[in-house]
C-alpha cells in the first residue's frame, strides 16, 4: 500500500487499473466519466507498450476490447449510461466468447439522453443481462474512493479468473468526488496466470478459434449450460456486502453505491434519536448477496430500499426476502441526490409505521414513498 492521496473517483479508477496492469484502454467521450480516459491517456503516454485509443463510437471501443482481450491484454473501456447501451452488443459477445474485460459505467440520468447528473437507473441493464442471450455480468458497486481502488483491481482479477466481462457500476457523483485513497502496489505482470486461450498466431501449435457462434442447437445448449455452471460458481464465490449496525436492528435500509452513503448518514441521524436501524449495502449487484439479507429478514420488522431510481434493486431485495418482512421503497430518480436528513425523515416515517402496525402491515412499497415525499 502506498501513502494516501486525495483523488477524484474517475482518477482513482484509472490509477487502480494501471496498477492492475491494464495497459489497454478503448473509449469514447461521454459525460460524466471523461476524466477517466483523460487520466489514462496521460498516464499511458509515459508508458511503453500501453495502448490508448479514442474510438469512433462506444460500439467500436467495446469491439477493440474484444480484440485486445483475445490477444491476451487486460483491457478496459468506460462510459456512462447511453454509451453503455451501445456497448451491450460487445458485452454479450464477451460473455459468449468467454473473454475477460472490465467495463466501467458512471451512471447518469435517463432514459434516452437524460442528463449528466448522478443516477442509479442502469441497475436492471447491468445486472439482468443488458445485451442479448442467456448470460450474466459480474457487477461491482463501490461506494467509497478506497473501494473504487480495491474493486478495480478485483474486477480485473475476477474477469481473468472467470473469463467473463466485469462491470464497475458507479455514478456521476462518485466519479467527481475527491477522497483520500491508498493504492495497492502494482501487480508484477509475471505473477499473472497464463491465458491458454490467447490468439497470437499458430506457432508450434494447432490454430485456434475464439467465437460465440454455435449453429448446432445441441452445441449451443451445451455452451449455455457450461456458462450456467460458471455463473452458479460465481454466485457461490463472489457475493459481498457491508452490514452496518445490523446486529440489533429492527429495521434495515438497503442501498448501494452513492445511495448507500446517503443512507448511512440517515442511519446515523436516526440512531441518535434512538431508532434501531441498520444498513445493508450490497457490494456486488450480480451476484446479489441474497443469503445474509434473507437471514436478516427473519429477524427484522421491515426493510427500506433506497435507490436513485424508481425501484430496480428493490426486486432483488424482494426475491431475497420472500415476503418474510415488509419491504418499502424510497427513491429519487433523474439525477436528484437526496440528503442524509431527507433519508432520516423517510426512515423515521417507516420506523414509526412499523411501531404502530407491526411488521405484518404490508403496504405497497411505493405508498410510503408518496407519503414521505409529502411529509418532506
Amino acid at each position, binding site marked *: 500500500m502506498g501513502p494516501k492521496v486525495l483523488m477524484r473517483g474517475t482518477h482513482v479508477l484509472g490509477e487502480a487499473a494501471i496498477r492492475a496492469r491494464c495497459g*489497454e484502454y*478503448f473509449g469514447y467521450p461521454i459525460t460524466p466519466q471523461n476524466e477517466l480516459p483523460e487520466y489514462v491517456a496521460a498516464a499511458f503516454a509515459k508508458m511503453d507498450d500501453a*495502448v490508448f*485509443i479514442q*474510438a*469512433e*463510437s462506444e*460500439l*467500436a*471501443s467495446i*469491439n*477493440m*476490447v*474484444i*480484440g*485486445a*482481450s*483475445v*490477444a*491476451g*491484454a487486460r*483491457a478496459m473501456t468506460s462510459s456512462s449510461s447511453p454509451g453503455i447501451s451501445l456497448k451491450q*452488443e*460487445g458485452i454479450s*459477445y464477451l460473455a459468449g*466468447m468467454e473473454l475477460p474485460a472490465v467495463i466501467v459505467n458512471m451512471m447518469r440520468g435517463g432514459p434516452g439522453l437524460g442528463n449528466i447528473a448522478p443516477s442509479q437507473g442502469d441497475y436492471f441493464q447491468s445486472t439482468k443481462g443488458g445485451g442479448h442471450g442467456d448470460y450474466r455480468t459480474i457487477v461491482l458497486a463501490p461506494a467509497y474512493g478506497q473501494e473504487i481502488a480495491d474493486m478495480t483491481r478485483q474486477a480485473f482479477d475476477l474477469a481473468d479468473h472467470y473469463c467473463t466481462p466485469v462491470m464497475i457500476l458507479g455514478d456521476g457523483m462518485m466519479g467527481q468526488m475527491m477522497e483520500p485513497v491508498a493504492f495497492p502496489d502494482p501487480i508484477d505482470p509475471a505473477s499473472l496466470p497464463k491465458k491458454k486461450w490467447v*490468439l*497470437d*498466431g*499458430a*506457432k*508450434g501449435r494447432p*490454430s*485456434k*478459434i*475464439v*467465437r*460465440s*457462434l*454455435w*449453429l*448446432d442447437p445441441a*452445441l449451443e445448449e*451445451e*455452451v449455455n449450460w457450461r456458462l450456467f455452471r460458471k455463473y452458479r460458481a460465481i454466485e457461490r464465490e463472489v457475493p459481498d456486502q457491508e452490514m452496518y449496525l445490523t446486529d440489533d436492528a429492527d429495521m434495515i435500509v438497503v442501498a448501494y453505491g452513492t445511495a448507500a452513503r446517503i443512507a448511512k448518514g440517515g442511519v446515523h441521524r436516526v440512531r441518535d434519536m434512538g431508532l434501531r436501524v441498520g444498513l445493508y449495502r450490497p457490494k456486488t449487484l450480480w451476484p446479489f448477496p441474497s443469503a445474509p439479507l434473507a437471514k436478516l429478514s427473519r429477524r427484522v420488522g421491515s426493510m427500506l430500499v433506497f435507490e436513485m431510481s424508481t425501484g430496480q434493486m428493490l426486486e432483488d431485495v424482494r426475491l431475497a426476502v420472500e415476503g418474510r418482512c415488509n419491504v418499502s421503497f424510497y427513491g429519487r430518480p433523474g439525477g436528484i441526490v437526496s440528503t442524509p436528513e431527507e433519508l432520516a425523515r423517510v426512515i423515521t416515517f417507516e420506523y414509526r409505521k412499523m411501531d404502530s402496525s407491526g411488521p405484518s402491515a404490508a403496504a405497497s412499497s411505493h405508498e410510503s414513498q408518496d407519503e414521505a415525499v409529502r411529509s418532506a
Partner: protein
Amino acid sequence: MKAKCEVPPHPVPLPQGEGRGEGIQKSPLQKHSPVKIGEGVDQVKKIFTRPESLKETQFHYCPGCGHSIIHRLVAEVIDELGIRDRTIGVPPAGCAVLAYNYFDVDMVEAPHGRAAAVATGVKRILPDRVVFTYQGDGDIAAIGTAETVHAANRGERITAVFVNNAVYGMTGGQMAPTTIPGQVTTTTPGGRVPLRDGNPLDLSQMLATAAGSVYIERTSVSRPKFILKTKKALKKAFQVQLDDLGFSMVEILSPCPTNWKMSPVEAVKWVDETMTQYFPLKVIKDVA
C-alpha cells in the same frame, strides 16, 4: 469441445433448368475416384496442392460462389509470405462466418460489421503479427462502415479482404449497400430504385480519401486472369501490412449465383458486364 461444421439449409432453392446446376449431380471427384491418391507419387512432381493455410475441410459455399476461390487465394498468399504461424484472421457475420473452419490460422469471430475494430484491438496488442479481416459488402460497407472508415483513417496496420457480391447472401438475398440500380433482390423486388433505396456505395473510393489508407485495389474472381490479379493484389495488401505502412484493402467482386438467381456462368458474366460498370476494376489507391 470439437465444433462441427453445421450449415443451415439454404433459404433459396438452387436454380434448376437448362444449363443450370452443371456439376451438381456429377462430381468430377466421383468420376475420377478409382485413381488412388498418391500412386506413383515419386515419379510425378506435385504442382498443385492444398495451401498449408487451408484446413482439410470441404467448403460449404454454393456452386459458383466466389468465396472458396478467394479463401484459397488468401491462404496461398499467407503460405507464400511464410506468415501462417503469426497471422490472426477476423471473419465476418455473413456467408463467410464459418471462414474459421477453413483457414488454418488463429481466428477470432467479430460481431456483424465490427471486424475492423476487433482487428484493431488484436493488432495494437500484437503489432508484430499479421491481422486480416474477411468481410462481405453488408458487413463492411453498411453496418460496419464507421469501424472500417476509422480503422483506415487511423492507418491501422491491418488488411481487409472485402468480398463484394452486391447482395446479403447468408440472410437470403436482401439489398446490400453495393446492390446496383435496377438489381432485383428480395427487398427490392422491382429492382433497386436509387431515389427510394439509395445508390450503391463505393467504399473503396471512400476509404481512398482517408489519409491512413495506403493500398486499395478492386479486382474480381470472374475470370482466370482476374483471379491471378486478385492474388497479386492480396499479396501486395499483406505486404503493405508487413512493411508497416498502413491500412490496406482488396475489394473483390464475387459472383453469387444463388441469390442473383443465375447460373454460375451467367453470374460471372454479370460481374464482368454489369457490376464493373459501377465498380470498375482498378488500383484505387497506392501510396506504398
